[in-house]
C-alpha cells in the first residue's frame, strides 16, 4: 500500500495491473491512452499528472509527472480534477463515472467517447484503489 502519485505508486500499480487484470476480460482489449491531471495538491496546491496507456488491454505505460502537461506523449483523453476528487475516487467514495457526470472530473474531448471508456477502466480504478492508502492532507 502506497501514497498516491508517488514513484512507488507507479511501480506497484504497474505490477498489480499486469498481474491481476485480464486484458480481455477486465479491460475489454481496449487500446487508449489517458492523461490524468491532478490539481490543488496539498499542502502547496501543486499540479501533477499521470499518463496511462493501454494496448489491446495490456498496460503499456504508466508514468507520473509534475505540472499539468506531459510533453513526451499525447494522450487520447485528458481528465482533469482536483486532488480531493481523485482521492474520493481512489477511496471508493465516488465512481469515476459519477465524477465525470458531476463535472468534478473534466474530460477534454467528446464526452460520449470518454464515457464509453468508463466501464473498461473500472479494472484500472479498482487496481489503483487496492494499492493506494496514503494521501496528502
Amino acid at each position, binding site marked *: 500500500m502506497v501514497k498516491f502519485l508517488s514513484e512507488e505508486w507507479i511501480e506497484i500499480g504497474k505490477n498489480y495491473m499486469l498481474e491481476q487484470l485480464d486484458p480481455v476480460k477486465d479491460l475489454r482489449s481496449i487500446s487508449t491512452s489517458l492523461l490524468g491531471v491532478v*490539481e*490543488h495538491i*496539498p499542502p502547496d*496546491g501543486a499540479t501533477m499528472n499521470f499518463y496511462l496507456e493501454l494496448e489491446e488491454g495490456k498496460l503499456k505505460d504508466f508514468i507520473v509527472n509534475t505540472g499539468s502537461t506531459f510533453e513526451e506523449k499525447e494522450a487520447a483523453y485528458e481528465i482533469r480534477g*482536483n*486532488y*480531493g*476528487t481523485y*482521492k474520493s475516487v481512489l477511496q471508493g*467514495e*465516488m*465512481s469515476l*463515472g*459519477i465524477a465525470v*457526470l*458531476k*463535472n*468534478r472530473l*473534466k474530460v477534454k474531448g*467528446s*464526452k*460520449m467517447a470518454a*464515457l*464509453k471508456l*468508463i*466501464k473498461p477502466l473500472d479494472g484500472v480504478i479498482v487496481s489503483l484503489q487496492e494499492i493506494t492508502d496514503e494521501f496528502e492532507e
Partner: protein
Amino acid sequence: MSSDNVIVKQKVDLKDAVAIAEKGTHCGMCRFDFLGSGVCPAGRKHGFLAYWPQGRMEIVQQLDSGRVKPTEKLKDIVDSCNLCGICDKQCNFTTQLRPEKVAKALKEYVDSLDPSEFQSVPEDNILQGLREIVGEEWATNDPVISSSYTMTILPPNSELNYYVVMPENTEQVSKIIKFANKNNVPYLPRSGGTAFSAAAPTVLAKGLSLEQGIVIDLYRLRNLEIHPESYTATVGAGITMFELQKEALSHKLRALAAEAGAHVCSNIITTGIISTWGNKYGAFADNFIDLTTVDDEGNIKKHSDWERNNPYATEPGFTNLNLTPPGIVTEAVVKLHPVFDDEEAVLVPFDNIRDAYRLLIKLGKRDVGLSLAVLSRKYLAEFLSPTLQISKDFDYVCKNYLKLNYVVAVICNKDDKKIVEGMADYTIDQSLMKSLILGAPRFSSLRDSEFMKILSEEEDPLKAIFAGPMRSHLEKALDPSPEQVSKVFDEDLQDFFKKVYSKPEMTDIVWLHAFRILPTRMMRQQMFMGPGASMWTGDEDHYLNWIQMFDDTGEKYNLEHSLGFISPLDHGKFAYMEYDYYYNHNDPDECDRISKSLIESMKKTLVMGKGLTILNYLYKGIYRKEHVLYPIPEAISEEEQELFDELIDTVLGD
C-alpha cells in the same frame, strides 16, 4: 434520592410534529409573499433554511431520527420564531399543513432540554476561510442548520459534514469557489431546492445531491430591477419567479412564467424556463439578454463577453448528461413582454387527447395566443381544488360524468379568442372558470348526485354543460363565493381565506397562469415526479405513443399517474410534455416503484426517439434551443442502448 432544587426535565415528544413535518414536500412557498400575508420574519432576517418554516419542518424530523443532535444554534433558531402564524396561512393554502404547530413543538422541545445537551460546534479552518469571504454571520458548519437542507440539496442519509455559506454578490461566489477548489472541498449551489426535492426520495438522490462539502445558498443575491424602456429585468439568483412577475406586472410587463417558487436564475440554468407561454416568449436562451455566471474555476463571465468561446452551444447526443450545473448563474437579464388590456382566458374541453393535441398544435403553428397548453383533468382538479379530497372528487366528477379529460387552455387577446372560438364547438370562459374556483367544494360534492347522473346521460355532456341549458343550472348549484370556498379551511383560517378568495386575481385565469401559485398543490402532502420530454410534433401518432408509454409504465408499477400538460414551443414545431407519477415520499415501496418507473421510461424514450427527456436537457437551459433540440434525436441503436444502460448504472450505482 432526589433533591428539591434539581428539576428533572421531561423531554417533549416530537411525534405529533413529525407527523405533520413528514408530509411536507419542500415546495418552498413559505419563502415569498404570494398571498399578501407577509413572509416569515425569521427566515427573511437570518436567511439560512433552518430559520424558515420549511427548514424547521426538516429539523424536527432530523432531531427525531437522531441524525442530528441539538446544538447551541438550535436555541437561536427557535428563539427567532415568534409564532406569528404567517406560515400556517401560506402552507395551508397549498398543502393544508400547519407548520406553526411544528415550530411550537420545536420550541417546547428545546425548552425541555438540559443546557448540557446542547453541543457547541467549533470553527475550523474551512469555516474561518468562508467567514472571511462572506462575514461571520453568513457561513456555518452547524449540523442543525445543515440538516435543514436535507431533501433539497443533501441526500437523506449522508453524514452531516457540511458548511453552508450565503454570499451576497457574484464576487463572493467567485471567492467561495476558488477557496473550495484550493482546499479540495466539493460544493453545490442551492436556490429553491424544489427540483431536487422531487428526486430526493428516488434513485436519483445520490447522483444529484452534494455528498459532503459546501452548500452555497444563493438566497441573498436579491437584486431585482425592472427596465421598462428595454422590456428587461435584472434578476439576482435569490429572486423567485413570483417576485419577478409581481414587479414586472407593476410596469404592465410579464416574464416567462415558471412555477411561483422557482428561482429565476437557477430555473434558467437547470432546464430553461418550461412554461405554457414558451411558444410566444421562447425557450432556453431565448429568454435572456445576458447572464452573469461563475464557472467551476471561480471565473466570473458574462454571456455577452465578446471574447469568450460560444456560451450558447453544447454537445449533442444522449450521453451528454450532466448531474451538476455548468456554472452558477448569479444574475440574469431576462426578457419581459407586454401585458395587453384585452387579455382573456379561453378553455376548450375535450374527452380525448388526440383532438386536444391536434387543436393545440394547430394553434401553436399559427402562433395564436400568448399561453397555450393542453392541461389534463388531473391538473385542473389539483389546481382548482382547495383540499386534496376535493381534488379527488373534482377529478371523479369530471371523469365519470362530464367526460372532461383535457382542456386546451389559451391566454390570448380578443382577436385570438375569436380564432379559438371559431375552431371549437364550445368553450369554457373566464366567468365559468371563476365559478369553478369559488364553487370547487360544491362541484366536487356533486359526485353521486342526480344532477350529474342526468348530465352523464346526455350524448355530449361537455356540450350540455358548457354550451347548453345545463350551464345555468350548474352555476346555480355551485353557489360560488369566497365565503363558500373558505369554509373548507380550518376554522381559525376561514376569515383569512375569505379575504384571499375575494381578491380579483385569485379567480383571474390570466393572472393565475402568469403567477403559477396553484401548481404547488400537486405537492400537497405527497410527492410527484414528472419525467417529461420535449418532443418533435411532426408525427402525431409518435407523440401520442410517448404519452401512452408513460401511461403503461405507470400502470405497470401501480402508481397514481397522469399526463400533466403539453405546451408547444418554437411555433409548434416541438412541444413539452410532462407526465406525472404521484407517490408517497414516506413509503419506501412506492419510492422504489417510482425509481423503477423512471429508469424504465427513460430507457424506452431513447429507443423511441424524436424527443429529449428531461435528463437529456437537464442543466442545458443556458444554451440556444437550436443546439439543444437539434438535430432531432433518432432512436438509439442496440450498441448505444448498452452504453446508456452502463451510464444509468453509473448514475445510480455509485
